[in-house]
């Protein structure tokens, strides 16, 4: 019994036209077009199913006369069937259209047509004509098409992986070169299959594949889709593959960073450990050991800070990120480490090195000397800059530290703009160097207990801070 549900406007004509177009053309452009429309199509199929499940099959066919043609055409498009959950939804729609009590020849015919479509999708008996021998062989052995295709896909993946890897090792042997267009085609054809677990080895190999060309040979749609799937945790890839993805496709890296920011800001995170956990999961701090990645992520965080006028959440995020990055950097194998200069190319190197020294690396007696050294460097730099809009440079030396001092250093180095805060438990020093009228002044006092990780390094903090207390 059909209920009185308002039928949403389902645009069958549009999708039928699309499906017809895709069925006829076999060019790379039309295949790219399919790939672009796959997510929307899946949503559309889902909407159809939601509508159909409450309807009688006869009513459904009356109300949506084009549905048969559409579903029929889509069943023969491997891009559609291979994508995510489209095949499941499509089959559910077909089931809904199957009538359990056919009253007339038309319904009988429709039933028969639905069954043959399903048989085609599941390769049960009417295997395509060139597979007829295979199908009898397999069923005589006592297996089903499920077993056959399971093995077949694994073999094909392995064969492609071997081909690509062999090409990498060939090095200068030009003869073995896989053509760039072939690799591009493979990457595009893999796009619908990204979330199929069998494909992971191929995804990894493609991401790590470097041909001779200077241009990117993997299709950008593919790279975007892999990134999307990775961010939504639909696939898991080894770290090297993810880093390679971000290194070769800038939009993916940007998206990943923004996604992380989004996640952190919208989650109710109660402690720094939780923030650090989410961040480590995203692999961005680990990826940032590549200077190129570090600089991009840094830039995005800086812009976020600027646009939000330095809200505490964003500051925390930057803080934790830098901490994790430093941690990962320290832990790296000494041989392969990039020098710090690579990460902070515009910054004054001795100052960077001095600021990155962590308190426990120095005996307590040397701390005040160390701080004095930093402030001396800063003063020298300020003098070198000779900016006319510098205001309020306190010339007092750093205060002497009390016993349980905590060192907390924030600085911003950006083409001559910088700001340094050295704070103790009750006192702090401020060196603002260039004040911009656009930046809001904010008060802050950031206290952290002394620990191995308490040495914080925050580049690009664009804020003015006013001293609140002074101590002798």
């Amino acid at each position, binding site marked *: 019994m059909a209920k009185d549900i308002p039928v949403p406007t389902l645009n069958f004509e549009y999708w039928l036209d699309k499906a017809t177009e895709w069925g006829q053309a076999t060019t790379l452009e039309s295949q790219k077009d399919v790939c672009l429309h796959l997510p929307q199509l899946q949503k559309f199929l889902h909407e159809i199913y939601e509508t159909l499940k409450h309807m009688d099959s006869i009513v459904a066919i009356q109300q949506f006369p084009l549905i048969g043609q559409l579903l029929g055409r889509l069943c023969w498009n491997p891009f559609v069937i*291979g994508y995510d959950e489209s095949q499941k939804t499509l089959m559910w729609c077909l089931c809904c259209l199957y009538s359990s009590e056919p009253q007339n020849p038309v319904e009988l015919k429709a039933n028969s047509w639905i069954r043959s479509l399903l048989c085609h999708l599941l390769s049960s008996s009417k295997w395509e004509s060139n597979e007829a021998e*295979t199908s009898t062989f397999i069923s005589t052995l006592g297996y089903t098409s499920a077993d*056959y295709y399971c093995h077949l896909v694994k*073999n094909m993946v392995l064969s492609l992986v071997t081909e690509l890897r062999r090409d990498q090792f060939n090095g200068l042997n030009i003869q073995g070169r896989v053509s760039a267009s072939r690799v591009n085609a493979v990457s595009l054809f893999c796009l619908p299959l990204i979330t199929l677990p069998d494909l992971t080895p191929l995804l990894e190999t493609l991401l790590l594949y470097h041909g001779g060309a200077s241009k990117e040979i993997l299709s950008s749609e593919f790279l975007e889709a892999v990134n999307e799937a990775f961010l939504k945790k639909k696939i898991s890839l080894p770290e090297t593959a993810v880093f390679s993805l971000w290194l070769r496709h800038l939009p993916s890296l940007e998206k990943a960073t923004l996604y992380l920011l989004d996640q952190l800001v919208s989650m109710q995170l109660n402690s720094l450990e939780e923030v650090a956990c989410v961040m480590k999961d995203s692999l961005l701090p680990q990826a940032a050991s590549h200077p190129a990645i570090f600089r991009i992520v840094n830039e995005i965080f800086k812009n976020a800070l600027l646009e939000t006028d330095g809200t505490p959440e964003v500051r925390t995020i930057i803080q934790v990120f830098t901490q994790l990055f430093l941690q990962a950097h320290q832990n790296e194998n000494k041989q392969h480490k990039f020098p710090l200069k690579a990460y902070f190319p515009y910054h004054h190197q001795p100052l960077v090195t001095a600021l990155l020294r962590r308190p426990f690396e120095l005996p307590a007696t040397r701390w005040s000397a160390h701080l004095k050294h930093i402030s001396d460097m800063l003063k020298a730099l300020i003098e070198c800059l000779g900016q006319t809009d510098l205001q309020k440079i306190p010339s007092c030396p750093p205060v002497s530290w009390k016993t349980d001092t905590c060192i907390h250093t924030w600085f911003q180095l950006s083409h001559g703009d910088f700001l340094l805060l050295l704070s103790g438990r009750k006192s702090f020093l401020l060196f603002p160097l260039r004040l911009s009228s656009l930046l809001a002044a904010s008060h802050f006092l950031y206290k952290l207990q002394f620990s191995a990780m308490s040495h914080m390094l925050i580049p690009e903090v664009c804020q003015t801070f006013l001293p609140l207390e002074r101590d002798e």
Partner: protein
Amino acid sequence: MEAVLEQVEQLPALLAGASSALVRDWDSLTLDRALEWAQYFQHVHDRFRTRPRLREVLGRRLRRAQSNPPIGFPHLGRCPQLLGLALLENRALPPTACRCLLHRLLQLPGREAGPEPHSLALLARRKAASRLLALPSVPPRPPADVEPQLQAEAQLLLGRLREEGQEAEPAGESAGPPRWLSAVLEQLPMSRAFEVVAAALLEQGRGADRAGDWDLAGSSLEGNWASAVGDKCVAGPLLSWLLGNKERFSAFCLFLPGSLLASLAGYYSQLSRPYLDLLAGCGSHLLYDPLQGRWVVSCPDKAVLSWEQLRERFTCLCQGSDVLKGQTQAALKLLKAQDGDFQVCGLSVWADLLTEVEECLRKDAEY
């Protein structure tokens, strides 16, 4: 236990019935019951999979049904898929039952979830994947690589052999290939059957090699030991199928390329002797034509190898393992000696072959 055995005995009848016209009278209740039986059989399989003696008992009971090819213990595990797909394609199934089948098979939301999804959506997805991965035009494949479809068929054949090997008593090599094997291979055209058997033997041989490497590394697991023992059960029947029939073996050797046969002869010593004998037979049909200055086939209507093909095959054999190389060269030298041990070209096909093969190997060594 006897109750379970009696129930399990119904499996062949169930599967046979599902593909027959008997389903005409089924309604949704019967269908539900049939699918539940299938689930039950799978459950039985999972419970007894790790108990070899009980497995054997169940297997023997199933074999009593004498279906051809025989239904064994592993079929219990695959029953839901076998039954589901058989019913789907059976046109005799009435619409009400069919609708019920579709809802159960495709796990439409709304029904209570089954114990284990049939993953038919995964099957459809994988089939589409196989179309997509084959679409980019394939460059000429190096001969060492096996075509994926062929390899899949070979893997399933090996799987079945392994399953049978685990259950049946190894009857020894004199018993010949199991009847079901010949019946199965007859489903394919002869040339395809040869390719599948060759691919299966190759895969088995490579696997044994790899297992051997692991053993050397000292990390051999129980699985490796079991597979090493099982190898005889797997390769044995295939080899006896090949060697059992002289004509079949000769057709096999003439059809497949020399490099593939050389690899197989390297893995399986049972093959190298008969193969060499076959090549010797082919060589004896060559006559020297002094006008053209080369060896030609004397009786063109017989299926024999030409001089060039013969040379290529002997070269491939000599490029194999040291054992195989030694065996081949010894055989050639013996044949040459039988012909009179002449050094002059044109008098003995074996002398000429030996000279050419050695020349080829010398060039290879230099390069």
